[in-house]
Every structure is written in structure tokens, then in C-alpha cells.
């Protein structure tokens, strides 16, 4: 084995540039595959503290409202906890967990935290283990509270968990007043894989936990509601019970509950009012809108990575074929001194193995090094750590090496062993023949095709992302920021001093407050409105201050936005005016519409239309835009939108004003462009990911084209000299040489373009608000073709120029 290894290493050394190109292409592709695999493994993992996650279930609920598209909530009414206990369902440790906001007060300052209200059964069920103290006591004592390390650090700096236990703090939930609590336990920050993890970037790991008897707990009526999704209910399946059986138990308990009678008849007559299921914790990483989108991104990345691996493999096959053809004399010599076909095959396999194994090692290092950047790109939850490279990924890389080996060696070796040794010894090298050449060109063609598809998709995604960020949503984003105050919306502190300072500042042009910041998608309140002409329309309703429209540059078509005195004033958008039966914007102004019910029930609150504005879009581009209503109020609202003169300094200016004149609360300032980017972060991540992968794929294909053309021209040198001898011009010689890549490129276009168009249309079909399917797809595809062509030309230009410099006299040498 050692002589073989030495021989293989020596051979590789003589062609190190080929080996390096093959290895670097493979390493990049394998690193991309490894990163995707690492992410998938990390994303599907459950909290290690939870034992037997296949047997612990989360009860899930999906409303079935008439004429509505409903989705599973990955949550349920809290009432299912006691309901299932009473029904005798085959479940143990049924425990409710409700999440909400909490304000913690200490020494005159307030901090927001995530509040979990939980039953004590959740402690053993979910493997909750405090660093210090008694968690059960925190959940059973009315004044008990458990807090995470992050809260301890915020309140007391470097205080140890043991020292924090017993300390008194003040806190309040979303409703109720501040109460004094005793810290009974200190918890580690929640594992991002835990079902209790709250991925809120503004709060981070700050979490508190209390029991359902706590003054900070969820109100009693919320705990008893059966059609309000207000928490999560976990339980352990009894032996012999499957998760699939639990849905029926839930339905039975739901129907048996006295509150079922209160559900409107049209929701439940001859139909189900809701659907129920139980999800094992091991299934949770795949469920829910965010998780599903994340897996979509990962699937796309996986496809692109595997495609790239194929391209790199084709590269290796091509290079290996070229290389073995070049080594005909050496092969003939080895055979003449007695080497068998099997021994030669062993040698070539060893050479290929060294290259591929080297690539795998390099890929591993690259994957480990790039993991944090990749996690950030995929917008994984904070604290979600990728790496070190898990054993299964290492195993996968090893299997990949073993799979690639026959692919890379078999065909070139078959070709090389077919040639008899005698001509090779005489210095006559056999041609690879028309089929050999066709196979190599086909592989190059697939490389180009893959690169074109990836580039085109990256272009389409980037163009759609640009469209999402710049499409007309009915408001301006330039020079506008959003100030979010970390406070309970129901109990906003006095902001008058801050707002006066804001109004006085020379760099601030306008400001307004709202309960729904522009740029972020919102479900909002959907409220059925009825006009005098009995036109009915569900409006998505938000509350705004009168200056909202001027601040955001929303065009007012008629009327003047102003708050009502004694009556509710509403501004509607053009779409709403039309749906409510008004012939024009002017006709709508001054009219009364009735609302205040819910999206099915007519309300009795009269609202006067004071203005009609241009269509305003709050929904994500994936959802259809609903007609809008804006309740105009002078009451303080917690999201403050600010229009300034200078985008570069606006956020800093607002921060300074807040620190000088605002209440002692944490805050964040985002530009509206940042809000939009956050809304479309997964689309953006996918676009960036595909952009990076397509760039790498094009590089891999170009490396292939570069070395192939170099090799082809070396082999065809005499042919081109003969062309020159018979009168070929520089252009004709370059054409001849370029045909080596031009034909595969053209065939690649024929194959790749329809695939790119199909994939592009498929991607865009997921958006209501999307690029024009013709120009939106055509331009990125043309761009991809030009980019691939340009890089290919760059890759082969040097060879073409060299070929053009060959002189006919060489025919005599």
C-alpha cells in the first residue's frame, strides 16, 4: 500500500494545479452540503433536557371559521388542560403553559421580560431544572417567581444564582398592577430547541416563570375559554397510546364543554367548528409557519448544494479523463513493465481518493468555519449554535467520498485501459474518440446548465426581494424610523415630554403613533363594517394618531384625518371605500359606517369616515391585501413613527431625544427599510444563500471550463496549427477553440432555461405581490446567461489568445 500511496502522491504532485482545482471545487460543494446537513440536524433536534420527546405531545388547535383560511396554531386554548384531565384521556402530566409579557421593576427602572405561566407538571414533563432554588415553589406560591440568568444579570450584574434566590423584585403581567415577588429559583436561559423558547430579539433570554395562581397569571376567563388560542398544553402519552388518538379525545372534550353551546351555530352546524391534533415534541421543529419556511429555505439550499456537488464531480471526471489521456505514454510504459489493469486502476483510484478525501477534510474545516455565518444567514434563533461538525455529518462526508470515487475513476479508467500500450510507447497518443469527447462535453454542458439554473434562480429571488423591498405599499419608507418602546401596551407611561421634544427638534419633520408599525406584517383586528347602503366589508383595522398619514407620506384622496370628539373617526383606504359601496373617495367622507363587532358579527359602534387614503398594505407579500380602516385617536399608542430630514442620523437623533426626555424604558429604533427587511428576512436569506451558492457553482463550472479548454487546446494544438497552415485567421482559430465550450454552453441554455423559468414561476406563485412573471423572470435569466457567458469567456480567453498566437511553422516541428 505504501508504494502505491507514494506513487499516487508523486503523480498528483506533477499535476498539482489539476488536483487543486478538482479538490477546491469538491471542497466548496461538500462544505455547502455539510452546512445544510448540520443545520438540518440542529433544527430537527429537540431540547436535550426533555426525555423521550416522541412520547411528549403538544395539543394543537385549528379553528374552522366559515369562509376563512385557517392554519394550525401550534398552540391551543389553555382550557384543554383541565378538560382532558376530566375526560380521562390517556395522558399524564397534562400541563398548561401560557406566554405573555412582563415588566420587571427594580430600583426605579423597568425591563421587559417574557413571562411563562405554567403548571408544576411542566417541570418534570419538560425537564425544567433550575440552577438554584425550588422551581415547584415558584409555581405554587402566589408571590413566587423563577427568573433566568439573563434577568439576574440585568437586575444585579454578576450576582450568583444562589445569591439571587430569596431576593424580592416587583413585576406585573399584561394586566394587573405591580406586585412584589420572591425569587424562588434561577433558571438557565431557555434552550432554543425547547418548545418554551421565545425567539424575541428585543427581550433575549430574559424570562420569568410563575404559576397559574400568581397575580401575574392569565385572567380566569382566558383560562376557561375554549375557542381562544392562548397557550400551550403539553402531556405525556400513556403506554400504548399514540399521538394520533389524542385528537379525538380533544374533540370529545371540546364538544362536551358547556361553552361549546356559545359558539355560533353557523360555525358548527353540519361541520366541524375546529380541528384538533397532538404533536410529539420531536415533530415540532417541522411545524409552524416560521419553521416550515425555514425548512423551505433549507430544502432549496440542499438542492443547490447537491447540484453544486454534482457540478464539482463532473469537473473531477472531466479532469481525470483528460489527465489519463495525457498520460498514455506513462500508462503504456507501466503496462509494458508488467502492470495489470487492476494495478493501474488501483493507482488511479488512490490518486482520486487522495483528492476527494482532501476535499472532504477541507470541506469539514470550511463547514466548521462558516457555520456561524450560515446560521446568521438563515436567521436561526439567537443562541442556536451550529457545530462542531456532528458525527453523522462526518459519516455522510465519508460516504460521499466513497460514492464519488467510482464516479470519478470508472469512466476515465475504462477509456484509458482500452488503448493498447504499443502506440503509446511509440509516442502516438490515441484520441479519446468522438464518444469520449461527447461525454466530456455533455458533462461540461450539465455544469453550465446547473450554473445557469442556479444563477437565474438567484437573480429571480434577488429581483423579487428587491420588488418586496421597493414595491409601492401605500407609504414611504425613506427617512422614516420606527421607535418601539419596550413597555406594556396597555399601560404606556407618559410620553408627553418626549413627544414635545420630538416636535421641537429641527431634524424631525413629523411624528405619529400607531398600534401597528408600518413595514411589519400584522394580523391586526379584522372587523366587519357595514355602510348605510348595507354594503358589508371586513376591514383590517389599526389605530393611529392624526399625523400618521403625513408622517408616512400616505396620499390622502379626500377629507382630513382627525380624531373625533365624542364619536369614533375612521380613515379608510380606497379599496375599503369601493367595497363599502361609495362611488368616490369624496362621497365616502362624512359617511357613517358601523363596526366594532368582529370579523363575522356586525358591531354597533358608529364610525365616521373623515378621510379616504390611497391603498395601504400591511400584509406580507405572500398574503392578499385586505381593505383597511384606521381609527384616528389622540390616545397615546406604543409604536411611534418618525419622519426626519436625514436617514443616516435619524435613528441616532431619536435615541438621543429618548434618553434625554423619554421615560426610563428600553427602546429600539429601526428604519422602515429595516422593518421591511425583517418582514422578508427568510426570502432575503434564501436569495442571499442561492446567490452565494450560484456564485460558487459558476466558479466551479468555470474552473472546469478553464482546465478543460486548456487540456483540449493542448490536445488540439496540432489540429489548430494545421487550420492555421491552411489559411485560418485569428478569429477562425479562436472560433475553433471556443467551440469546445460554445456548443456545451448552447445546449446548456436549451436545458437550463426552461428549468429556470419553471422554478422561477413556482417560486413567484408563492407571492400575491410579485414581479411581473414575464419581465420579472426574463431579465434575471438574461442576466444569468450574460453573467455565465462573461465568466466563461474570462475563464477561456487566455487560452483562446494563446491558440491564436500559434504559428503554422509548428507543423514542421
Amino acid at each position: 500500500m505504501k508504494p502505491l500511496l507514494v506513487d499516487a502522491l508523486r503523480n498528483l504532485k506533477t499535476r498539482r494545479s489539476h488536483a487543486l482545482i478538482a479538490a477546491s471545487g469538491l471542497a466548496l460543494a461538500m462544505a455547502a452540503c455539510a452546512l445544510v446537513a448540520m443545520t438540518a440536524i440542529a433544527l430537527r433536534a429537540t431540547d436535550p433536557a426533555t426525555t423521550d420527546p416522541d412520547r411528549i405531545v403538544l395539543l394543537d388547535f385549528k379553528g374552522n371559521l366559515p369562509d376563512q383560511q385557517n392554519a394550525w396554531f401550534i398552540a391551543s386554548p389553555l382550557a384543554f388542560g383541565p378538560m382532558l384531565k376530566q375526560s380521562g384521556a390517556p395522558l399524564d402530566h397534562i400541563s398548561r403553559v401560557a406566554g405573555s409579557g412582563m415588566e420587571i421593576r427594580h430600583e426605579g427602572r423597568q425591563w421587559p421580560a417574557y413571562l411563562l405561566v405554567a403548571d408544576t407538571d411542566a417541570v418534570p414533563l419538560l425537564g425544567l431544572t433550575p440552577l438554584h432554588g425550588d422551581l415547584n415553589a415558584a409555581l405554587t406560591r402566589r408571590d413566587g417567581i423563577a427568573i433566568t440568568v439573563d434577568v439576574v444579570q440585568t437586575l444585579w450584574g454578576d450576582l450568583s444564582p444562589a445569591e439571587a434566590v430569596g431576593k424580592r423584585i416587583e413585576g406585573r403581567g399584561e394586566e394587573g398592577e405591580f406586585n412584589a415577588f420572591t425569587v424562588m429559583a434561577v433558571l438557565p436561559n431557555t434552550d432554543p430547541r425547547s418548545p418554551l423558547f421565545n425567539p424575541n430579539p428585543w427581550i433575549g433570554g430574559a424570562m420569568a416563570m410563575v404559576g397559574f395562581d400568581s397575580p401575574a397569571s392569565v385572567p380566569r376567563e382566558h383560562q376557561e375559554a375554549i375557542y381562544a388560542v392562548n397557550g400551550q398544553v403539553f402531556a405525556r402519552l400513556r403506554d400504548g397510546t399514540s399521538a394520533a388518538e389524542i385528537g379525538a379525545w380533544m374533540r370529545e372534550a371540546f364538544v362536551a364543554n358547556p361553552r361549546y353551546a356559545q359558539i355560533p351555530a353557523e360555525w358548527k352546524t353540519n361541520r366541524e367548528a375546529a380541528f384538533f391534533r397532538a404533536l410529539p415534541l420531536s415533530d415540532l421543529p417541522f411545524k409552524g409557519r416560521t419553521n416550515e419556511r425555514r425548512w423551505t429555505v433549507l430544502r432549496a439550499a440542499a438542492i443547490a448544494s447537491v447540484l453544486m456537488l454534482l457540478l464539482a464531480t463532473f469537473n473531477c471526471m472531466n479532469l481525470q479523463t483528460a489527465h489519463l489521456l495525457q498520460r498514455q505514454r506513462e500508462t503504456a510504459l507501466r503496462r509494458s513493465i508488467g502492470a495489470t489493469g487492476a494495478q493501474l486502476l488501483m493507482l488511479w483510484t488512490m490518486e482520486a481518493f487522495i483528492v476527494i478525501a482532501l476535499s472532504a477534510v477541507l470541506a469539514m474545516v470550511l463547514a466548521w468555519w462558516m457555520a456561524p455565518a450560515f446560521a446568521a444567514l438563515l436567521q436561526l434563533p439567537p443562541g442556536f449554535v451550529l457545530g462542531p461538525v456532528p458525527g453523522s455529518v462526518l459519516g455522510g462526508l465519508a460516504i460521499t467520498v466513497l460514492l464519488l470515487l467510482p464516479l470519478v475513476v470508472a469512466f476515465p479508467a475504462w477509456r484509458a485501459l482500452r488503448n493498447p500500450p504499443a502506440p503509446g510507447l511509440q509516442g502516438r497518443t490515441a484520441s479519446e474518440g468522438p464518444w469520449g469527447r461527447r461525454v466530456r462535453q455533455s458533462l461540461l454542458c450539465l455544469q453550465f446548465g446547473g450554473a445557469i439554473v442556479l444563477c437565474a434562480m438567484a437573480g429571480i429571488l434577488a429581483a423579487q426581494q428587491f420588488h418586496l423591498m421597493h414595491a409601492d405599499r401605500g407609504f414611504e419608507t425613506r427617512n422614516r424610523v420606527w421607535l418601539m418602546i419596550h413597555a406594556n401596551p396597555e399601560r404606556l407611561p407618559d410620553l408627553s415630554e418626549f413627544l414635545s421634544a420630538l416636535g421641537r427638534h429641527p431634524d424631525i419633520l413629523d411624528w405619529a403613533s400607531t398600534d401597528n408599525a408600518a413595514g411589519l406584517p400584522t394580523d391586526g383586528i379584522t372587523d366587519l363594517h357595514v355602510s348605510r347602503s348595507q354594503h358589508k366589508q371586513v376591514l383590517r383595522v389599526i389605530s393611529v394618531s392624526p399625523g400618521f398619514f403625513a408622517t408616512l407620506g400616505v396620499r390622502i384622496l379626500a377629507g382630513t384625518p382627525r380624531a373625533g370628539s365624542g364619536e369614533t373617526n375612521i380613515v379608510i383606504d380606497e379599496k375599503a371605500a369601493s367595497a363599502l359601496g361609495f362611488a368616490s373617495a369624496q362621497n365616502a367622507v362624512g359617511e357613517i359606517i358601523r363596526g366594532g363587532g368582529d370579523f363575522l358579527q356586525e358591531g354597533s359602534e358608529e364610525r365616521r369616515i373623515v378621510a379616504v387614503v390611497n391603498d395601504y398594505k400591511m400584509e406580507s407579500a405572500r398574503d392578499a391585501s385586505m381593505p383597511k380602516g384606521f381609527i384616528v385617536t389622540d390616545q397615546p399608542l406604543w409604536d411611534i413613527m418618525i419622519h426626519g430630514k436625514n436617514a443616516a442620523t435619524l435613528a441616532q437623533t431619536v435615541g438621543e431625544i429618548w434618553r434625554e426626555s423619554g421615560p426610563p424604558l428600553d427602546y429600539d429604533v429601526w428604519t422602515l427599510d429595516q422593518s421591511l427587511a425583517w418582514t422578508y428576512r427568510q426570502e432575503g436569506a434564501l436569495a442571499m444563500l442561492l446567490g452565494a451558492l450560484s456564485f460558487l457553482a459558476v466558479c466551479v463550472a468555470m474552473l472546469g471550463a478553464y482546465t478543460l479548454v486548456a487540456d483540449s487546446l493542448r490536445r488540439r494544438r496540432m489540429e489548430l496549427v494545421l487550420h492555421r497552415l491552411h489559411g485560418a485567421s485569428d478569429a477562425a482559430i479562436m472560433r475553433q477553440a471556443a467551440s469546445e465550450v460554445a456548443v456545451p454552453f448552447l445546449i446548456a441554455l436549451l436545458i437550463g432555461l426552461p428549468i429556470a423559468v419553471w422554478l422561477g414561476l413556482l417560486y413567484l406563485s408563492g407571492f400575491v405581490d410579485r414581479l411581473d412573471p414575464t419581465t420579472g423572470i426574463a431579465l434575471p435569466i438574461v442576466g444569468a446567461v450574460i453573467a455565465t457567458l462573461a465568466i466563461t469567456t474570462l475563464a477561456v480567453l487566455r487560452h483562446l489568445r494563446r491558440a491564436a498566437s500559434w504559428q503554422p511553422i509548428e507543423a514542421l516541428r
Partner: protein
Amino acid sequence: MIEMQQLTKRYRGGDVETTALNSIDLQIDAGEYVAITGPSGCGKSTLLGLMGLLDAPTSGSLRLDGHEVAGKSQRELAAIRRDRIGFVFQSFNLVDDLTVEQNVQLALRYGSLPVSKQKLRVAEALERLGLSHRARHHPGQLSGGQQQRVAIARAIAARPALLLADEPTGNLDSAHGHEVMRLLSELNAEGATLVTVTHSAEHAALASRCIRLLDGRVLVDAHADLAS
């Protein structure tokens, strides 16, 4: 047909200058069969290269059909080669990936002849060389003698007035070598001017004129009739 006056070719490699041809005066008339002989390194192939307009002289004059070659552009030289000169090489210089007929057609590819006529010419040339049945074969499937016949077919496909052969039998056994020389002699007899470089005295004896070079100079320039 070819007139050389004080034709000199020097090569420079680094600081070393080598004189390959030194003040050659030579005239070759149309229809002649000239054999150029001499030891290795005497300048035979250099002389052939200059005659074939594959290389430019360092100094002196080279006239082809009465026209001075010096100062002509590469495009003009290529056109003259294409229309007037055919080449036969020692190592055949056939393209492995092309079939026999494609190899022959290569000589016509850059001319003005339409493709249909090119095909006719290729067929005629192959017929003339007795290779019609090998038209679709690749060079690798032919013997050395057959490969050189393909090379000759390529050289005559454009019906050149001047045939330049650089040791055309160098890679052949004697039977195939004689066959190739017979073919070249036939072509000369049909009117083509033939200049061949050879090491073989036997093959040189077939020529009507023998030029022997030594150290870049003409040592002997003997016409067969005079010699006899």
C-alpha cells in the same frame, strides 16, 4: 516559381544567435522535383518552412511566382498557402478526432469553394490516393502508409502548384515509403512542383534536382540530367 536571393534566417535564443540559413541563392522552376538533403541541423526544414511561407526570413528576398513575399501580411500569406501550396509532413499531422475525409477537407475549409464542391474535391483526392473506402475511418484505424496517403490527399485537395514534403517517408517502412514517393513523383509528373526534404539517398535520387545543404549554405545543387 521560387526565387531566393541572399536569404538568411537567424534564430535568437537568449544571448545566443544561430544562423540556420546563410545567404541562400536559389531558383526553383515550376514543375521541378527538388530533393533537399543534408545532415541534421543543416537548415533543411528551415528552408522548407520559408518556401512554404510558414516563417519569415531575417534578410534577403523570397519571391513566389514572381511576387516578393516579404512585407505581405499574415492574411495574404495564409491566402497564398491556401491556394498555392500543399504540405506533407513526416509525422502526418492528421487530426485524430476527425475522419479521413474531414482531415482532407481541412485544406479546403478556409477557401472560397462551396461545401458541395469541397466534398467533390475531397472525394477526388481520396479516389486518387485509393482511400475512398477509408473515408469515414479515423486516422487511428489506419496504417502509417495509409495515414501518409491521407496527408498527401489533404495536400493535393486544393490543387496546389507547389507541394512541400518534409521527410514524408521518415515514419514509414520501406514498402510504404516507396509507395509514398511513387505517389509524389506521379503528382510531380502531372505538373506540380515538388520540393521534398529527405535523408534517404534512394528517394533523393528520384528527384530531378538535388540540393545538399551544410551549415545553412548550399553545398551542392545538382540537376539529375547534369549529374548523370
